[in-house]
Structure formats: structure tokens, C-alpha cells
């Protein structure tokens, strides 16, 4: 009955058009361009090392002819020295090519990561609303890792394999076209049998990936839901379901592994066969004086040198393609439309008094259904405004518009009489502080998390803010106090304590406008009492927007905006609204009457 979430990650689709690949390559090139010089050096190194790896066996072969078969002695030491130098240069050039390529590759990966990270901060909120953060995350880390590994080695290997292959064939043709033809006989056999194997492995590997993904999802869900599994005593059933999935994975894994195990064996036997063929046929040719013994030595060595790259190329090409696919997914995110830039003539707001006005504001998230419609209200500095209404009437939308996470479709939002669209987003937000629904805290110490509200705050100010938010007492009870490191999964402190920290973080910011989005709903009443005390101090001379469910909190507001289906239907103080006997009094009495009985 548990179904694993469908994963796109596991199976990599390589069916992408050449045009797309070329486009992605061009993008990657953009990151490489300023390293052009170094890249050229690497390619020269690859050429040198490929050339040298062909030159070595050639000289050995010639030496066999001259010094062993013909038994000459002149210039022997020259050849030895030449050989030693070639081997030295070969090792050096192949080291250098990797050395520099690693530098280039990692710089590129660094640049892509940085750009991607920067992009996150420029994407509009709607991008994140549409996506699961976990999925986004795993996609990015895997894709970038994949790219990093491919850049490090694959690029070099693809180039050097190609060069070696071409070079070996050319030299062999020059030495003896007939023996070359014999040597190349092995190629179609190799191609055919590799194709036979890869056809099978690819299918199995895909199946294995799919099964693995499913198992992964299953484990994830069962473990994160472990409390429920335990409470309902479902351990045995979970194990049974696991065994079934595990068995499937085993089956597909067995065949994938068996078939892929054939490859090295096949390469080995083909190498041996081609060696036997070259030795045999070459021997006959040598017998007839068509070629020298040295040529046979050269051929046998070259044959080994090109069966390997031929095999490598196929593998490398596949990893290369899947890395490209990953790169494309990363670029897809980089290419997403950014949050609209601040309009050309935006200004900084040096100080804000806190007058807020909404003039005929309408907004829709999806162009279909209006989230809020024709909202009008104005708030003078220092006022506390409570937004009230059932879920989904647009309270959060109003706050998000005020913060300019979105811009209204119609109408204007004015702060101190200035249209917010004329103000830089960063400047606008720097005058506000927030306690949002999710008291998101970062991995880091409690001190750092509180200081997040104002980065230049001193340690004393951090403690002061914590005291105001009634967080100080629980913080000092922790073994490491303010230096307690909060874990990314939020373990270690309770939900209520997180809220307190979020409030301390807002307090330290000393904002002109304070936004509390259901901030108090997770805190017990006693603590809430103390918070309200502190908030009252904080709200003094500050404009404050509160979204809260409990009417009691709202009673103390200077003004209440009652929302219904995206519009403000009533506004006023608690008492005046009750007298109106409208929607608010209906809401109020529904709760209060019941509470009182």
C-alpha cells in the first residue's frame, strides 16, 4: 500500500538531439572561454602524450630489427637514451595534462556552482513554490558531481583515445596495409559483441536504477514515518513489502552485473586472438620477407593500444552524454526568469516612518483566480493591524505583496507615500522584520541565528534581544548556551523554542514595520503572554501587521482588517466591529460563545 515516490533521478535519458547537446556544450564553453590558453596547453599535452605512446613501441620494433635481427651495434646507446627520454616525456606529459585539466575542470565547476547559487537568490518566490526543495536539491548535487567527474578525466580520455586510434591506424597503414587489414578484422567482431552486451546491460541497468529508486523511496518513507509504523504495529508488513522490492532489485542487479562482467573477459580474449592473428599472419609475411620481425612487434603493441581506446570510447561517450544531460538541467535553472529587476529609477529609502497604504490592489497568482481584489486600506505609523478571516482569504498574499515577493496586478502599495515599486527591494525589506509561519533556522549557532536579523549586532545586543523574546532562559539552560549549534533538520530544540528564536531574530532587526504571520500559533499560552508583553514594547512606534488565528490576540490590535474572499469587508477596532454586527462579530461570537460555555 505504500508507494514509492516516482523518481526522475535514477534513469538518465540520453535521447537528446545533437542540437541540444551542441547548445549545452556552447554554454559550458562560455565558462571555459577565459581559460582558453590553458585549455590549449592541455590539448597540446594530450597530443604529445598520444604521439609518444605510439612512438615508444615503434622505436622498440625498429631496434629489434636493427640490433637483434640484423645484429648491428652502431648507435645502440642513442636508441636506449631516446627510449628513456620518450618514456620520461610520456609520463611527464600525461601527468601535466591531468594536472592542468583538473585545475580547469574544478574552476569551471566552481563557477557553475557559484552562478547557480547566485541564481537561487534572484529567482522569484513562485519558482520555489512550484518545486519540491528536496528534489531540486538532489538533482543539483548529483548533476554537478557528475559534471565534475566527467570534466576531470573523460574529456582528456575521449581526445587521447581518438588521437591514439587514428595515429595507430595511420602508422600501421604506412608499415603494412595488408597486416593492418588483418589486424582490423577484430574490430567488427568487437563492435558486434560489445553491442550485444551493451544492449543487454543498458536495459538491465535501467531496470536496476528504477528498482533502486523505488526501494530508496520506500525506505525513506517508512523511516520518516517510523513513528506511525510503530504505533500501528506495522513492522512485519513493512518488512514483507521491503523483501519484495529487495528481491526485484536483486534480480535486475544479477543480470546487469553478469553481463557487464563479460566485457573485460571479452576484451581479453579478443586481445589474445588479435595477438595470435598478428603473430601468425605476420610470421608468414615475415617468412616471405614482406615485413620485418620488428614490424610484427610494433603491430602487436599497437593492436593492444587501439582495442583499449575503442572500448573506452564507447564507455566514455556514454558518461559524457549523461553529464551533458545533467549540465542541461543545471542550465535550465540558471536560465529561469529572474525576479524582476528593480525598475530603472528606483530609490533607497533611508528611513521609514511606517505609513502603509494599499490603493485598489488586486493580485492573482495564476491569472485565473484573483487572490485579492480591490483591497484598500491605510495604516498610520505605529499602528498595529490585525488581518482576520478564514484560511485562504488572502492574508498571506497581502503580506507577500507588502514585502514585494510579488507585485500587484492592479493598484499601488505606498509606504510613507512612496509607491513601493519605485523602491529597491533590498532597501524596502531592510525596514521590515518578519516572523514567518515556518521559523526557519540555519545550521549554525543560536547566536548566529539571532544575529541574522542584523548582521552588525553585538553579542550583548543578541542577548538583549533573546531576553526580550523570552528565549534567554531556555538558551542559557542548554549546555553550550548561545553557542549551541542548530542542526539542519532542526533537532535539538522544540518548535516553540524555534519560534522564540525567530522572534528574537526579528527583535534585533529594529524594524519600522513588523510582520507576524501566525507567529504565535505554535507557542503555548504562557509563553505567548510573555511574548505579547515583549511585542508590545517592540511595537511601540512601529507599524505592525499580525496574522493570528486567536481572536484574543487580535482584540488588542489598533485596527482589524476583516477579509472575506480576497477583499476587505470590514475594518475598525474590536469594539466598533462588534457593534457593526457584521462578519467579524459572527466570527467572534462563534468562538467566544463556545469558549464561554
Amino acid at each position, binding site marked *: *500500500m505504500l508507494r514509492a515516490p*516516482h523518481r526522475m533521478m535514477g534513469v538518465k535519458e540520453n535521447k537528446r538531439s545533437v542540437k541540444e547537446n551542441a547548445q549545452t556544450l556552447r554554454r559550458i564553453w562560455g565558462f571555459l572561454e577565459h581559460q582558453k590558453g590553458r585549455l590549449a596547453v592541455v590539448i597540446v599535452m594530450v597530443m604529445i602524450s598520444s604521439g609518444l605512446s605510439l612512438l615508444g613501441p615503434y622505436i622498440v620494433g625498429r631496434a629489434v630489427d636493427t640490433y637483434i635481427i640484423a645484429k648491428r651495434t652502431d648507435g645502440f646507446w642513442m636508441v636506449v637514451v631516446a627510449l628513456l627520454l620518450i618514456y620520461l616525456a610520456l609520463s611527464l606529459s600525461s601527468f601535466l595534462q591531468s594536472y592542468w585539466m583538473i585545475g580547469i575542470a574544478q574552476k569551471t565547476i566552481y563557477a557553475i556552482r557559484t552562478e547557480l547559487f547566485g541564481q537561487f537568490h534572484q529567482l522569484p518566490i513562485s519558482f520555489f513554490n512550484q518545486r519540491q526543495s528536496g528534489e531540486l536539491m538532489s538533482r543539483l548535487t548529483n548533476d554537478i558531481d557528475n559534471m565534475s567527474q566527467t570534466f576531470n578525466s573523460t574529456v582528456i580520455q575521449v581526445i587521447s583515445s581518438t588521437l591514439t586510434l587514428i595515429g595507430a591506424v595511420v602508422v600501421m597503414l604506412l608499415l603494412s596495409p595488408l597486416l593492418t587489414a588483418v589486424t582490423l578484422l577484430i574490430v567488427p567482431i568487437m563492435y558486434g559483441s560489445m553491442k550485444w552486451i551493451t544492449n543487454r546491460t543498458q536495459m538491465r541497468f535501467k531496470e536496476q536504477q528504477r528498482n533502486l529508486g523505488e526501494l530508496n523511496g520506500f525506505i525513506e518513507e517508512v523511516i520518516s514515518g517510523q513513528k506511525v509504523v510503530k504505533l500501528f504495529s506495522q513492522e512485519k508488513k513493512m518488512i514483507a513489502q521491503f523483501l519484495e522490492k529487495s528481491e526485484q532489485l536483486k534480480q535486475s542487479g544479477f543480470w546487469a552485473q553478469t553481463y557487464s562482467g563479460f566485457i573485460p573477459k571479452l576484451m581479453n580474449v579478443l586481445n589474445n586472438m588479435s595477438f595470435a592473428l598478428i603473430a601468425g599472419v605476420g610470421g608468414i609475411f615475415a617468412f616471405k620477407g614482406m615485413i620485418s620481425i620488428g614490424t610484427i612487434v610494433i603491430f602487436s603493441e599497437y593492436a593492444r593500444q587501439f582495442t583499449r581506446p575503442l572500448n573506452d570510447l564507447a564507455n566514455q561517450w556514454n558518461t559524457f552524454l549523461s553529464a551533458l544531460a545533467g549540465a542541461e538541467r543545471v542550465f535550465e535553472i540558471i536560465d529561469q526568469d529572474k525576479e524582476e529587476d528593480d525598475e530603472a529609477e528606483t530609490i533607497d529609502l533611508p528611513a521609514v516612518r511606517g505609513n502603509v497604504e494599499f490603493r485598489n490592489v488586486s493580485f492573482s497568482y495564476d491569472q485565473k483566480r484573483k487572490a485579492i481584489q480591490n483591497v484598500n486600506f491605510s495604516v498610520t505609523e505605529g499602528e498595529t493591524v490585525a488581518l482576520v478571516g478564514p484560511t485562504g482569504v488572502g492574508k498571506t498574499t497581502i503580506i507577500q505583496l507588502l514585502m514585494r515577493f510579488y507585485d500587484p496586478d492592479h493598484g499601488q502599495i505606498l509606504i510613507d507615500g512612496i509607491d513601493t515599486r519605485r523602491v529597491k527591494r533590498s532597501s524596502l525589506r531592510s525596514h521590515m522584520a518578519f516572523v514567518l509561519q515556518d521559523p526557519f533556522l540555519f545550521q549554525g549557532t543560536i547566536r548566529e541565528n539571532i544575529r541574522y536579523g542584523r548582521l552588525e549586532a553585538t553579542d550583548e545586543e543578541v542577548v538583549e534581544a533573546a531576553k526580550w523574546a523570552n528565549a534567554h532562559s531556555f538558551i542559557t539552560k542548554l549546555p553550550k548556551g548561545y553557542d549551541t549549534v542548530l542542526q539542519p533538520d532542526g533537532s535539538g530544540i522544540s518548535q516553540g523554542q524555534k519560534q522564540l528564536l525567530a522572534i528574537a531574530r526579528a527583535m534585533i532587526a529594529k524594524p519600522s514595520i513588523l510582520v507576524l504571520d501566525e507567529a504565535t500559533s505554535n507557542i503555548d499560552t504562557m509563553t505567548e503572554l510573555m511574548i505579547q508583553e515583549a511585542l508590545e514594547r517592540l511595537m511601540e512606534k512601529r507599524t505592525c501587521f499580525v496574522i493570528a488565528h486567536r481572536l484574543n490576540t487580535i482584540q488588542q490590535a489598533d485596527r482589524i482588517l476583516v477579509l472575506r474572499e480576497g477583499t476587505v469587508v470590514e475594518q475598525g477596532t474590536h469594539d466598533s466591529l462588534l457593534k457593526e454586527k457584521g462578519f467579524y462579530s459572527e466570527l467572534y461570537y462563534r468562538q467566544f460563545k463556545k469558549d464561554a460555555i
Partner: protein
Amino acid sequence: MRYVLSYLKSYRKWMIIAWMLMLIELFVELWHPLLMEKIIDNGVMKNDLHVIWKWGAVMVATSLLAFLSGIANSFVAAYVGQQYGFALRNALFQKVQSFSLFHFSQFPTASLITRMTNDVSQMQNMVFMSLRVMLRAPLLIIFGVVMALFVHVKLALILLIVVPASLAFLLFMMNKAAQFFTKVQHILDRVNSIMGENIAGIRLIKAWGRSLYEKTRFTETNQALMTRTVTVLRLIETITPVLLLVMNMAIVIILLIGRVEIHTGSATAGEVVAVINYTTRMTAALSIFTFVTTAFSRAKASGQRIANILTAPVDMLDKDKRDEQPIEAGSIQFENVSFRYPETDVDVLRDISFSIGAHETVAILGETGSGKSSLLQLIPRLYDAMDGTIKVDGIDIRQIRQERLRTAIGFVPQDILLFSGTIRDNICFGMDNVTEEEMIQAAKNAQIHNTIMSFPEGYDTMVGQKGVTLSGGQKQRISIARALVRHPKILLLDDSTSALDVQTEAQLLQALKSYSCTTLIVTQKISTAMEADTIILLKDGKLLAHGTHEYLLRTNELYSKLVESQLGKKGISDVKSTT
């Protein structure tokens, strides 16, 4: 590691077969240079075509034999590897299912998943490889040297220096690289975690305008990652060129000595070729060695992580002496119960005693961190109390089989967990014999039936990633329905109505009265608490008061303050006037 490998025992026979097959391959590979020597010395040098054909044919035939045993080895090795992985995976999952919640708090979910998938495949690959190349590479190197010495001592002498030196260099570098890799992995984790945090907390970052701050934080780590990665990769890339250089030099030296020896007639051309052939084969084996050591050290780490889980002691096993009587009434007694979470040193509950009769409804009130949720979790034995006794129907719950205890309890946890699947799957979670009517009744009582029916696919609507997004309140109510459908004797609601509006909550509480079960409700709302028969007030892990609303209002200052804060002074006077 040894513990993890012990799971291989039942495949011993197959492993021996795989090794035998591998030995055939090794034998062929070691024999071939000798055959070449014969072909060159007795055939080519003496112009004897017959000898060439004869030994050539033997070479081809033995290659084919090696190929066939290689293929057979593939099958057997894959079989053993997969069976082994299968066994490990299953053992892990079963072990994990026997874990208590305390264990889960010790192993983060992600790490448990990694252990069951990644680490198991590492072990599996290690086994697969050890049946194929892991032994072959060292054996080839050892026997290669021996055979070369056997062919011609003086020519092969250089190998006695070069091969051990290369091996030592290789192992040293691999060891170094492994250390570096751990550091790189560490920073990579950090980079990924900052990225994850930034995605998850993007709203906050934007609201606070902290992009620059985050970028600086990220850039530092990202830069460190780049430098470290470059260092370790460059280190590894020195290995192959150096090895190749050394082995190539060795070949040149063998050639030089060989030339002298051939001149003096103490060596044949065939012998020189054979020794060189052994050397090149060893070079190939050495490069496999890099690969083998990485796989092995990875597997070692994985094996350790797996063993950690498999050998973790299991607490809360059912005792042998079990009370098998079904739980009938559902009364609950706490007798001097104290509790602290394992490996912490703060008591979250201190000396709690109370008694709840069957079918009573009790609300538990208290501040954040006063121990409400902890108290509730002790009843289904998600944790065991440190001191004191908890009794259900007069029996110590530690004497009751866990499954039976939990079947009698309907628990609605604070953090709502729904599984991906249909709403029906979630409500009927783990019960095979629920009728449609029972399910609908439970949903109706949980005040969620109408909402479910408003979805196009009704009870077959998918929830979770692929399905509809439910609001907090809707999830809470489904989770309540899931508890109700089981007709529990004890119903535990851990602040499970917080997201419901007042009206819905009232209807829900009314509907609960039709169940004959003992109910404990953890709540923040006085209005909810007032519906209960009695109220337990907790503060700092101690039981402050236990009694009816009116009793507490009269006798407890904290309680009346709570009531005042939520209902206002008027609320109290209203209450007083109605009572």
C-alpha cells in the same frame, strides 16, 4: 567488517567455484609467456613452422578456455554478490524495524537510507570484484615475478626491486588520497547542505535581504572545496605516470641486460621476450591495484557503517513473560513516572502520578517543553520511563506485548505523517479488514468525509508528492480518522486539532464521545480542555494539578491566568455565571 562478511558464509561453496574459475584464468595468463618463449626459441629461431602451429594452437585453445571460465565466473560472482547484497539489505531493514525511536534519533534518516542502499552496493561490488580481480591482481604480480625468475634469474632480478617499490609507492599514495578524500567529502557535504538550506529557506533570505551574506558564506566553502578537490585529484593523477615510468624503465633495463646475455649466449631471445611479457602483464595488474584498493577502502568504511547498525543493541524487546489478555477497558495509571530522553541529562517528566478511569476524557495542558508530548509517548511505549510504572488496565505496560498494546491505542501524533498513496490507504493503514462503511464512519467522525468527497476521486485521491496538497487541518483530520477506524481502547491526541477552526473542532470532539475509549488530549486551547472530564496541568515536567475545570479555576492560579489570557476576564465571569 568481519561481522558484515559473516553473511557470506552460506555462499562458501559458490565462492570456491568462482575462485577456481578465476585460478584457471590466472594459470592461462601466466602460462602464455612461456608458450611464447617456446614459439620464438624453438619455432621462429629454428625456422620450425610445425612448432609454431602447435604452440600457437595451444595458446588459442587456452585463451578460449580462459574466456569460458571468465564468463562462468561472471555468473557465479554476480550470483554471490547479489545474494549477499540481498541478505545484507534485508538484515538491515529488519534490524531497523526493530529499532526504538531512540535509535532513530541517533541515526538520521538520510544516513539510514545510505546504509541500506549505497553501502550495501559497495559491499556487494567488493564481493563481486574479490571473486574476479581482487585476488587475481596480487596473485598475478607474485606469480609473475616467480615465473619471470624461473625463466631467467638474471633478467628478472630487476623486477625484485621495481615491483615491491612500485607497490609500496602505490599503497602510500592511495592511503594519502583516502585521507584527503574524507576531507573533500566533508566539505562537499557542507557545500550541499548550504545549498539545501538556501533552497529551503529562500523566503526568509529574501525577506531579510541576506543574499550577499549567504553568497559570501557559500563562496568560502565552495572555494575550499575547489582547492581541496584539485589537490586530491592531482595527487591521484601522479600515480599512473610514475608507475608507467618505473615499469618502462625496467623494460629498457631488461632489454639492455638481455642484449648482453644473448650475445654471451646465456639467454635466448625467447626468454627475453617472455620476461618482458611478464613485466607488461604486471604493469597492467598494478593499475588494477589502484582500483582494488579504492574499492576495498570504500567497502571497509561501508562495512563499518553497516555493522554499526546490525550490531546496535536492541532495547525494548518483549519480555518472555507476557500478559496475553486483551486490553478491554483502557484505564491508565501513572505511578511515580520519571522520564528523560536517552543520552540527555534533563528530566522532562518528574515523579508523575495520576489515574484515569476507563472511558474518561482527560486534557493535558502546559507550556511548551512542559512534557506533554513526552508523557503521551510513554503510553504506547515509544519510549520507556526511567523510573516508575505505567499501567493499562492495571497491568504494567512493559509486561504487555508491544504489538498488542499498540493495537489497542489510537495515537495521533503532533507531526502528521501521511504516506504516499490514496486517502483510503492512509485511513486504513495496516488494516486489511476494514469495510467501506467503517472507513466512512471514521472519516465522518473525524470531520473529513465531506472534504474527501469534494475531491474528484474521493477516497482514491492520491496524497503526497504525486497527489493533492492537503492543508494542515485536512492532514490532521485524516490522521485522526486513521486512529478512529481501529476502534481504539485508548485514544491519544497530541495537539492534533491545532489547525482546525473552532466549529470543526467542536464537532470533532462531540463525535469522539460516541467512541467508548479513554481519551487523552494534549492541547493549548482552554476551550478544548474544557470539553474534557478532567484536566492535567503540567509545568516543567511536574504534575501541577489534576481536576475538573471548575476545580482548577478555583484552586490553581496558573490555570486561571491561562483561562484569562485566552478567554479574557469576561470569559471567566461568563463561565462563573454559567456554573
